[in-house]
């Protein structure tokens, strides 16, 4: 089956963007659900290699938010 929805990996900082995403959920703000979230303790934890490995393993885009 051909999948048309893009897969996006989001690396979110626990203290900033992840909390922001959580708040978005709590405030029931509507947004698309293509994100696969990976919670990291700091966006500095995201090694540049993670991005390449994510693309290698078949995702279509990467978001790093801190």
């Amino acid at each position, binding site marked *: 089956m051909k999948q048309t929805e893009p897969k996006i990996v989001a690396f979110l900082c626990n203290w900033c963007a992840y909390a922001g995403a959580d708040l978005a959920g709590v405030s029931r703000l509507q947004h698309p659900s293509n994100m696969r979230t990976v919670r990291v303790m700091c966006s500095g934890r995201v090694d540049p290699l993670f991005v390449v490995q994510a693309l290698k393993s078949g995702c279509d*885009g990467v978001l790093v938010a801190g």
Partner: protein
Amino acid sequence: MLMVQKLLKISGIGENRLHVAWVSSAEAQRFVDISTDVIASIKAQGRFDAAMFSTELAAAEETLKTEILRWMVGKEVKLLSRGDVYGRKWEKARFESILDSVLEREYHKQLILHAILAGFTSVRAISQKVGLGLKRISYLLADMEKTNMIEFRGHTDCIPVFAAL
């Protein structure tokens, strides 16, 4: 991460496959806006075919592992704010231009290494495979020889042949 975007651009994968944003914990609306934008941008670019870009991805991965890049990125803040061991403070633009050229050089070296491993062992064959000029490849091969990435294996029909180590 901006370096990774540049690398994705050089490799033809596309810099917009990676998005970087700053969102504070109180900015739920901003997070929603950003994630909507990112999804729209990736949708517009279409699906990413990892198999088509397997060489580029492998080369990009090896490039990001290289010591010189890791070292430079790790020293950036110190070089810009406190200066180097000679007490010279570096301009951001100058540091970035050097980082860019190192990034491109290391990526090209990895592409050449992959070409050699795939059986393209002469300068001309490598050039046809990776699409770089003959002069650039000769220059990088000499560099790669010095750092023990490849070796010169002798001549076949007067054509120099290289091998990966």
